[in-house]
Structures are given as structure tokens and as C-alpha cells.
């Protein structure tokens, strides 16, 4: 623990760790030092000069080294002639800081008067009004009036789009540099910067597209004025008219804590609508940041029950070949009857965006009838995560020197941006990063070791690492042996094994179910063998494709490799939050009777016999389990739309009609049942999930000047589950079967193998309805190596016909030297039917002139 230092701030004694800045020490003591440029998550720069204080230091006798005493025995303190900046000065023993003097007051007034000389003072029409540090601090610390002649104010552009997502008002900018520093220090996307100098300084972007960063929205939270606003919220509402509801982002397995700001709106028929998404502080998950997908892709939830969106509004039952609206009673009766008849012929297929409560009820219902469940996903390994997942108390913020992080088969910047950000910071604190992948990804910039393997050898690469440490398995297949000879791989393995803490994140790039299960097993073996399990900051994390896939595994759902056949042979198929027919037309031949429970009329729903409309997660409550196995609660942001039910409630009511004991009213009660039946969740309830402890830095609480407009967390930090290894269970090594899916065996006649990759912004159902993002989502494409393209005579940008799994689709050709030869990268959820590695045929499409 760092040495403690005691000082006095405005008469209050404060003890803080050595190295703390005065501004933070004051904050901890409940004393506000006004700041503009300082932000507790970034290095101090001392630019705005707002945080001026008087600083006195004890006088030390040169000869004795002792503090000189006044006549009354108190230490003699000497004050400097100038005011000093509290944000750049670390505390020292015996320091006396004065922020409440006339001199300081005058100094701060001076600075505010300077800032206001160039400010347009258009607060009445400013989006920041009501949550603006400049406004607040002017009230608290400013001069009464300005002596600057209004006509001499610098006129600058007020509506500058920095790309499509963020707007800049140049007149309002106070040149604090927070946005520029966030982008370079925290996000490492220095795509906005200062242009000119002196009074002419202005924020610009020269990237293509403008402000090209997945983290751009965070700058609007920390901008201390209304200079940066999102295109989404601009002129949308006044902050003080907004309600807020705590929630969890449903876009990826990180589980960022968010707050939905809502408002009742006349133009939406007087209904409550979501106006924006704000980060909510959880220092163990997302700190105070969220990515732009989380901030902008929420629109898919809109319009529930209103009839003026794509959302389903009422139950549908197929009559005379057409889906016709019916009452809930009728629909549920039909479904219950069919389920009863099906019995063990029921197959329930569920997607990973459902909550734990939904999944639990689905499983109870299906099991109660003797049917089968399946998880609709292309990634496996959740059972292993439950065994050797990260230990309770895991927090990337605690990782630094001594920690090793291995990322394999995942492009984290695209798949889980906040983990990317936090791992980058861990590396900056001294953590050792190993990136194992088939192609270069952005994260490699921070890696101490890069392990390169051919697509198809993901598990082999990890086993090779293990093998290089201790030749546990002599008869390794050739690809593993070849990899094991690589000195870089050996060095990486050694470094990983030698680290105090070891963490593995595995993903699904290039992999389907079998490959990812094998990879997960290989990673588990590595962790077990190097004794990196059962403790905080050690263990396995799966980079799932959907927010709650881990929860689904924990609730007992498993993917099946024979899904297509199982679907065909099921007597009744119950599809919830999944669209197999949309993803792959060959899945359209469902079984005898199809029930779809959905938000939208998906391709699968169009084929259904019964369609049950449900609430979006913003309209109800529930819980998700994140990739780090943190169970987190979300709350309703808008009222329950008439005519819709939550998934768990629909399932519960079907179950009740069938005489099963299912909870259909309160999500909280479903959680109690989960806790009593699922060992890992024992002891959980909604009260525990809502518990909070004080977090640092302090944000929210009306102190937006300090940390920005991220919300304070008062509704729950969630509970991280202990993996079996931490609960003392034995976790044996197991050896994955090598399907030995080496490249050559899988490739097509042309010798090309399609490898799936994941992109943050795709054409999936939970992204595409947010039209704001369209400009950032590419047309369907595949990426291939220029050498392969040359052989096939495919120029960059050419339109291709891509045939995968028997389906032909059009896609543009992206040529990229980073794509290994012989491989075609196919992004998931971009309109191309890709699930795992598969042979692919590509040829130039006939150009049809319009």
C-alpha cells in the first residue's frame, strides 16, 4: 500500500495516498475545486487554470531537517507568492491548501471571465444546459458580469459535423483538450485534434470518415461545455426533463452499465421514449465509458406496442395460410395445446440476447414437458467458463505488472471494445499481453508476444503453447507440433506460465461450434496446467457474440452441432430470440409446427404457425450474466407497452396452462428460483444485485464538472459468480478431439476457405434499426488477400457472387494484405450465411446495368 500523506484543505485534515493530486484529495474530502481541463481518468495538463488554490508548505530547517515551529508549537507554513493549480500538484505531508480565500475566489473569477469572453452564452438553446460544468461553475465561482464587448467575440462555426455521429459547436469550445486527450490517451484513436493556435484553436478531424472511432460518444460526456453533442441527442430534449433508468448494454458480453434517459413525448403520442444512452459507472466493468454501439444502437427497442415501428404488436396465429392477429388467450391456448401434444418432441431454440429469467423459464418449461433445448449460437465453451472462468473479484483495473493476458481468436476492438480499452490500459500499467490470431488485429499493437497460426489451428496453437511448457501429450497431431517449434510461441507460453496472474479471452473468429469448444478446452487446459484458475484476475473469459450467452449456458442451454436435423425432426419448434431462417435460408424447412417468440417479424417468424410478440429489454426487468460472469440487473426504462409481455412471462403462462409450476409475473421471483436451483447462482436475489459501494472517481451527484455526465451507480454493481474452480471443485484436464480441420481439408475446389470474423457494427437486427449508424456499416463484403485476388482476377471493390453453404449472395471484394492466402474473411451478421469455417466459392458477379 502506498504511503499515506496528511494535509489540510480548507481547515479539514485529509489523509490520502502519496502521489494523490490536491484536486482529488479535496474531492475525497468533499471539497470542490472547480476544474475544466482536469479529468480524474486522464493525466493532468494544467491548461484551463481554473483549479487555482493557495498552497502552503511546512518550512523545513535546512540544518536539522525538522519542521520549523511557530511560537504556539504549530508548524510554520510558508505560502508561495502565486496561486497554484490543484490539478497538477501532488499532495505532500503537512501541506496546507486554501481554496476558500478571497485571493482564490478572485483568481477563479478571473479565469471564468476569460473563458466567458469567447463563449456565445447561448445556454437557452444548448443541449448541455442543465448539466453544463461551465454553467454550474459560473454560478458557483464566476464574476457577476462580463466586461468584454459582446460584438468583439470571436465568431465561429456552430454546427460542424465531426463525422455523422458527433457535432461540434466551435464557439462553445473552451479548448480544454479533454476530448483530444480522451481520444489519444484512453482510446488511442487520435482522430480529433487541435488546429491553429492561440485564440484560433479549434477542434478538427481529418479521418475518413470523420471522427472515426468506436469510442467517440464518450467525448460528449466529458466535454465540459455544449461543444460536443451526439447527432442522436442534439436538440432532442433538455437534460432536466429527462428521467433515468439503470440498465445493462445488451450489445456485447462486456455488460457495460448504462442509463437510459427517457422523456414523455407529444410527438410519440405522449408515450415515454428513450432519448439517449449514457454510461453508468461500474469501475469493475466499464468504468465510466461505453462504446458507440452501446450508445447509438438502442433504437431497435423503440416503438414497442405503438404500431409505428417494425416491432410486433399482437400475437399472430396462422389461419388459412395467413398470419392473423388473435388474442393472447387464444394464442397461448394454441401453443399450450401443441406443446402438450409434442411432449418430448418439443425443441426450444433460444438466443443469447434473452435474460437469465427468460432462459430459466424456457428451460423449466421444456424440461417439464420432456423436450429438448438448444442455444442458437456459433460459439461454445460456456461449460468450461463456468468451471475455470475468472475468479470472483476479477477486475481489469487491478491488472498490471505480474498479470498475463492471452487473447486468442478474437478481434477485441471489434467484438468487445471496452475490454479492448481496458486491456490496453492494463498493458500500460505493466500487464503482459499475448495475442494469438490468424491475422493482425488492432490489439496486437500492445502485445508483448504475437502468436500467429493458420485458421483452423486455433486450439492447436494453444495446445502447442501448453506442450512447449511440459510435453504432456506426446502424440500431438502435426499442426500442433509444427506450431510448438515456433520460438515466439514458446516465449509467449513461458511468459504466460511465469506470470503471477493469467487470464485467457477466447473468441470465435474463424471458428464454429466444434472449433470453439476445442479452443475453450485447450485454453482451460493451459489455465489449469499453469495454475491460473480459481482466483481473482485468473481464468477464462469467452468473447461471446451476444450479451447473455454465458447466462444461457449457466441456465443449462447448450448449442448443438446437429441443429438443422434436430429442427427438422422436432414435432414442435419453439424459437425465441433467434432467426435461423434469416441467417440461412436452408434452415427454413422447420418441423411440423413452429412457434416464434420475437420483437420483430423475422424471416423465421414469417414461417411460423404462431408468433408471440414480446417486450424489448428496455420495457421490463431482468438480468444478464456478462463474459466475466457478473450477474447484472436491468430495470424498465419505459412503461410496459400494452399488448406485449416479457419473454419469461409468456413462457411462464404457457407453462401454467400446461400445469407446470412456473413464475410468470415477477422477474425477481424467477431469480429466486434460479438461485435455488442453479448452484452457481445460489444466494442471488434482486436486492443483492442492486447493492452498491462507493466508487472512485466520484461521478454524477450533480458534480458533472469533475467526471463528466456519466451516471453514478446507485442501482447495482452486480455480483460476480465464483467459478467451480474457486469453489473447490476439481477441474480435470480434457483433451479436445482434433477434427484436424486443417485448411486444405475444408477449402473449396478453388482452395478457398471462408473464415467468419466479427464486426462491431453489422447488419444484425439489434443494430440495423439505428439508421444513424448506417453510414458506418459497410455494404456486405468479403476480404481476401491481393495475391488470391490476382489469381482470380478480382479487382478491389469488385462485386462478387459468394457461395456459402449452398447459398449464393452478392458481396463486395475488399483486398487486404493481412488476410492469409487461401482464406476469405466473411463478416458475421452482414447478410452472408456463415457460421463456422466453410468452403467458399467466389466469382465476379455479372454486372447488371440498371
Amino acid at each position, binding site marked *: 500500500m502506498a504511503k499515506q500523506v496528511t494535509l489540510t484543505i480548507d481547515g479539514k485534515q485529509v489523509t490520502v495516498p502519496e502521489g494523490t493530486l490536491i484536486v482529488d484529495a479535496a474531492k475525497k474530502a468533499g471539497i470542490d475545486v472547480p476544474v475544466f481541463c482536469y479529468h480524474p481518468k486522464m493525466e493532468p495538463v494544467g491548461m484551463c487554470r481554473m483549479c487555482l488554490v493557495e498552497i502552503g508548505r511546512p518550512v523545513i530547517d535546512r540544518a536539522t531537517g525538522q519542521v520549523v515551529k511557530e511560537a504556539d508549537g504549530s508548524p510554520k507554513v510558508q505560502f508561495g507568492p502565486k496561486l497554484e493549480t490543484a490539478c497538477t500538484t501532488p499532495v505532500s505531508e503537512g501541506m496546507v491548501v486554501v481554496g476558500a480565500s478571497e485571493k482564490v475566489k478572485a483568481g477563479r473569477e478571473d479565469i471564468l471571465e476569460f473563458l466567458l469572453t469567447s463563449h456565445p452564452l447561448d445556454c437557452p438553446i444548448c443541449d448541455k444546459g442543465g448539466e453544463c460544468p461551465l454553467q454550474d461553475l459560473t454560478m458557483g465561482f464566476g464574476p457577476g458580469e462580463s466586461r468584454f464587448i459582446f460584438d468583439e467575440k*470571436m465568431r465561429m462555426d456552430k454546427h460542424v459535423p465531426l463525422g455523422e455521429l458527433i457535432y461540434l459547436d466551435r464557439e462553445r469550445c473552451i479548448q480544454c483538450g479533454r476530448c483530444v486527450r480522451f481520444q489519444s490517451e484512453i482510446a488511442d484513436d487520435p482522430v480529433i485534434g487541435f488546429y491553429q493556435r492561440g485564440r484560433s484553436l479549434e477542434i478538427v478531424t481529418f479521418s475518413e470518415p470523420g471522427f472515426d472511432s468506436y469510442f467517440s460518444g464518450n467525448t460528449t460526456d466529458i466535454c465540459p461545455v455544449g461543444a460536443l453533442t451526439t447527432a442522436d441527442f442534439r436538440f432532442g430534449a433538455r437534460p432536466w426533463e429527462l428521467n433515468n433508468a439503470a440498465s445493462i448494454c445488451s450489445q456485447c458480453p462486456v455488460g457495460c452499465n448504462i442509463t437510459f434517459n427517457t422523456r414523455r413525448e407529444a410527438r410519440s403520442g405522449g408515450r415515454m421514449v428513450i432519448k439517449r444512452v449514457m454510461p453508468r459507472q461500474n469501475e469493475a466493468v466499464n468504468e465510466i465509458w461505453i462504446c458507440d454501439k452501446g450508445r447509438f444502437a438502442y433504437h431497435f427497442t423503440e416503438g414497442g406496442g405503438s404500431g409505428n415501428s417494425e416491432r410486433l404488436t399482437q400475437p399472430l396465429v396462422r389461419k388459412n395460410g395467413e398470419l392473423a392477429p388473435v388474442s393472447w388467450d387464444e394464442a397461448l391456448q394454441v401453443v399450450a395445446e401443441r406443446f402438450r401434444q409434442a411432449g418430448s418432441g418439443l425443441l426450444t431454440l433460444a438466443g443469447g440476447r434473452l435474460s437469465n429469467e427468460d432462459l430459466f423459464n424456457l428451460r423449466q418449461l421444456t424440461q417439464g414437458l420432456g423436450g429438448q433445448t438448444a442455444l442458437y449460437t456459433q460459439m461454445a465453451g460456456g461449460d468450461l467458463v463456468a468451471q475455470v472462468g475468472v475468479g470472483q473479484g476479477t477486475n481489469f483495473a487491478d491488472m498490471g505488472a505480474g498479470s498475463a493476458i492471452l487473447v486468442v481468436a478474437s478481434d477485441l476492438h471489434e467484438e468487445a471494445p471496452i475490454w479492448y480499452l481496458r486491456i490496453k490500459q492494463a498493458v500500460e500499467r505493466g500487464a503482459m499481453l499475448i495475442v494469438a490470431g490468424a491475422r493482425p488485429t488492432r490489439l496486437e499493437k500492445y502485445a508483448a508476444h504475437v502468436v500467429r497460426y493458420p485458421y483452423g489451428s486455433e486450439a492447436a496453437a494453444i495446445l502447442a503453447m501448453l506442450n512447449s511448457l511440459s510435453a504432456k501429450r506426446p502424440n500431438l497431431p502435426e499442426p500442433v507440433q509444427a506450431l510448438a517449434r515456433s520460438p515466439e510461441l514458446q516465449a509467449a507460453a513461458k511468459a504466460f506460465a511465469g506470470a503471477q496472474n493469467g487470464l485467457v479471452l477466447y473468441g470465435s473468429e474463424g471458428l464454429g461450434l466444434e472449433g470453439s469448444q476445442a479452443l475453450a478446452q485447450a485454453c482451460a487446459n493451459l489455465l489449469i496446467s499453469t495454475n491460473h484458475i480459481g482466483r481473482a484476475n485468473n481464468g477464462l473469459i469467452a468473447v461471446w457474440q451476444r450479451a447473455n450467452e454465458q447466462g444461457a449456458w449457466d441456465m443449462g442451454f447448450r448449442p448443438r452441432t446437429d441443429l438443422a436435423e434436430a429442427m427438422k425432426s422436432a414435432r414442435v419448434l419453439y424459437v425465441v430470440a433467434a432467426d435461423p431462417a434469416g441467417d440461412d435460408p436452408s434452415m427454413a424447412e422447420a418441423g411440423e409446427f413452429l412457434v416464434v417468440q420475437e420483437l420483430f417479424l423475422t424471416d423465421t417468424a414469417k414461417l411460423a404457425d404462431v408468433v408471440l410478440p414480446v417486450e424489448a429489454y428496455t420495457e421490463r426487468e431482468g438480468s444478464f450474466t456478462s463474459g466475466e460472469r457478473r450477474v447484472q440487473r436491468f430495470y424498465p426504462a419505459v412503461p410496459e407497452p400494452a399488448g406485449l409481455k416479457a419473454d419469461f412471462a409468456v413462457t411462464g403462462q404457457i407453462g401454467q396452462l400446461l400445469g407446470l409450476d412456473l413464475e410468470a409475473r415477477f422477474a425477481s421471483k424467477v431469480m429466486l428460483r434460479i438461485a435455488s436451483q442453479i448452484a452457481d447462482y445460489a444466494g442471488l436475489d434482486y436486492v443483492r444485485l442492486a447493492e452498491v459501494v462507493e466508487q472512485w472517481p466520484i461521478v454524477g451527484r450533480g458534480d458533472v464538472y469533475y467526471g463528466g455526465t456519466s451516471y453514478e451507480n446507485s442501482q447495482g454493481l452486480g455480483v460476480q459468480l465464483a467459478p467451480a474452480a474457486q469453489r473447490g471443485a476439481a477441474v480435470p484436464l480434457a483433451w479436445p478431439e482434433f477434427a484436424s480441420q486443417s485448411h486444405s481439408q475444408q477449402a473449396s475446389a478453388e482452395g478457398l476457405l471462408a473464415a467468419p470474423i466479427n464486426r462491431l457494427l453489422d447488419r444484425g437486427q439489434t443494430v440495423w434499426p439505428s439508421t444513424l449508424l448506417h453510414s458506418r456499416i459497410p455494404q456486405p463484403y468479403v476480404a481476401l488477400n491481393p495475391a488470391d485476388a490476382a489469381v482470380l482476377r478480382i479487382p478491389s471493390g469488385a462485386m462478387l457472387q459468394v457461395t456459402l453453404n449452398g447459398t449464393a449472395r452478392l458481396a463486395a471484394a475488399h483486398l487486404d494484405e493481412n488476410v492469409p492466402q487461401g482464406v476469405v474473411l466473411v463478416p458475421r451478421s452482414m447478410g452472408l450465411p456463415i457460421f463456422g469455417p466453410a468452403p467458399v466459392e467466389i466469382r465476379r458477379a455479372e454486372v447488371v446495368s440498371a
Partner: protein
Amino acid sequence: MSEYLLLRHRQIPDIGNLTVYRQNEGFQAFHKAVTSMKPEEVTEVVKASGLRGRGGAGFPTGLKWSFIDKNKWPHYVVANADESEPGTFKDREIMENNPFQFLEGVMLCAYAIQANVAYIYLRGEFWQIAAHLDRKIAELHSAGLLGDNLFGTGYSLRLYTHLGAGAYICGEETAMLESLEGKLGQPRLRPPFPPSFGLYGMPTVVNNVETLTNVPLIIEKGAAWYRGYGTEKSAGVKIFSLSGCVNKPGNYELPLGTTFRELIYEHGGGIPGGRQIKAIMPAGASSSLIVANEQALDTPMDYESVPAVGAQLGSASVIIIDESVDIPWLINKTIHFFKHESCGKCTPCREGSYWMMHLTERIDKGKATWKDVELLKDVATQIRGKCLCALGEFSIEAVLSGIDRFRQDFEARVGAREMIETQP
């Protein structure tokens, strides 16, 4: 002056030729240092000589070198050839005409702190001087005075020029380091100071061109010899760049402690047209205005005496103002300079210089009232002591001293306005 120490080309015209420079003891100091002195000994001699920085702040040079952090490597030397203070043109004359002595100074500094690379940061306008120095550096390589394993000692050294691109603030040492790193030329927070956290975060000594040009002779002839020039606390010689209302503007190398009177009237040939001298700015545009009375004229120009008459010696760029010059016009000029050169990093300088510019413009145009003059004074006072770097603090010197010491000029300007207003 009997003998030049710095502007030696005035006595030895071809000293810019390597052979000639070497015939005149050139590179003997460097050879001596590298082959027979410990690095710390070089620093000690410079310390003992009493040499102080000629870039403006007057910081003791040897002391600065001794602060270099020996736990972090590599070390760097950056020679400050940004020379952008209005009224300063001395470094340029040295580099153009006596380049080897300057380069030898850089090399001695590098040896003293065991740097293997030194950069010379020149203002962008010194494009041709940089090319000139590049040729001289190439000659030193050919002559075995730069490169690897110098004189068989294992010590290696390389020099590189680097051009700025028109930003006065890059003369400030930390802004210069940022600029050299390819970033905006905005000053860093200090501490840490360059000797512990400099170029690329490594220990670095930044010295002015003139400062470094003193070093070869100090090493060659000894500290005591150098102390024979100048005063007790301001040892040595200084180049005074004399400009403005004076008959013979130019550089004058004189011992520190020479009076203003001697510089202006003996060397500078007095004021043109027999006009009266009115004010002196001893440190360029960053300077306070000294009322040029008899007492001021008799003040010795050294680091201690100039403050006694209300200004700083700075880089000794002495601008002479005669009675024909109006002080409101003058401060409008200096404020335009500072407004143009403010880097914009900190609020008081960025906003204050812009505000002051509006006020000085109005005052100069005779469109102001006395209230504006008072407001100008207030704004300047508001800036004081709150800036991140010295540029902002410099910007108010002429303003405050001008209003205080030449009040009548401002009263006259404001009066002019009243006259305009009363015209039919």
C-alpha cells in the same frame, strides 16, 4: 573591445572555415575534454566559470548540466536556436559566421552529459542557416570530430539540425521538445524539468546558442580566465542586440555590466535626428519599458542591476524607443505579437491576449475612453501569475509598465478620442 570571444569572425574573418578555426585553437577544448577529462570535470569547469544561460532566464549553465539524471539513458542535448524574441538576432550572427565554435560548444555539452546525439532546433526561417550548419557538421564527420569512437576513446557523437516552422513559443524549452517530438509546440508542465524528463522523456540539456558558444573558450582557457570578464554575479561577455531608434543598430559583444549609456551612445551612435531617448526595452518585446532617464542610462546591464530599474536583462535584445514613439502604439504592437504567438494551451494567455488586443487596438486608434485603459490594466493584472508558461507572463510586461510609466501617452490618446467626438 580588445578581443572578441564569441563574434570572433569580426577579427578572424574566415573562422567559419574549419582549417582556420582549427588554426585558432578550434576543437582543442573538445579534444582535451574527450581525451583527458571526465565528463563531470567539464561540468565543474563550466560551473566555476559562472556562465549563465543567454537564452533569457540566466540560469547557471554548469548547475543545469549537473542536474542531468544519470539513472535514465540515453541523454540528449538540444541547442536552442529558435531566436524569435523581437529584437534578438545574435544567435544568427554566431551560426552564420562562427559556426564551429557554436558546434564545439554543443559537442562539449554533449560530452559533459554523455549524450551521443544532439539536436539543433532552429526557427523555420533559418532554413539556409540549417543547410549551412549541415554542411559544417558533415565536415566535422569527415575530419573525425564527429561520429563513432572519437579519438579512439569509444565516445561517439552525432549532431542533427531540426527546423521549426514559425512559432515563437517553440523557443520555450519544453514547447521546443514537444515540437521536436513532432507534436504541437505547447509547453509542458514543469516540474519535471528537461534534465530529468526531456526529449522523448529522457534527460536532456537545453541551452541557448550563445550560451554554448562560450563553452569552448571556458574549457580551453579556464574558469578563472572567463571570470575576468563581466561582474561577480554576471560573469563573462554578452552579445547585446541593439535595435529600434538608434543610429547603429547591430550586435555588440560587451562584458556584462556595461551600462546602457555606453551601449547606446558609444557603440550604437546615439539616437537618430538628435531626438531624445524615451524608453528602453532591454529584453525585447517581452520586456518592461524602462523610462530612459539618467539613472537608467547609467545602469549596468547585468542580471542583478536591470531588475533594479524595473525590467529584466533577458536575452539582452535592447530596443530603443525615442520621443517620437507613442507608447499606446507600441503596446498595440507587442500585444499583436503575443496574441499571434500564444500557443493557446492555457486560458489566461489565450483569452487574455485576445482581449488585450481588442483594447490596445481601440486605444491606439483613439477610440477608447480612460475606462478602457483601466480595463486593459485589469486584464493584464488578471493574467499575471496564472499562466502555464512565461509567454503569457511576458505579454503583460510592456502593457503594465507602459500604462504605469507613460501614463501621459495614454491620457493623450484618450483625449484624442474626446476631440474626435466633439468634432461637428
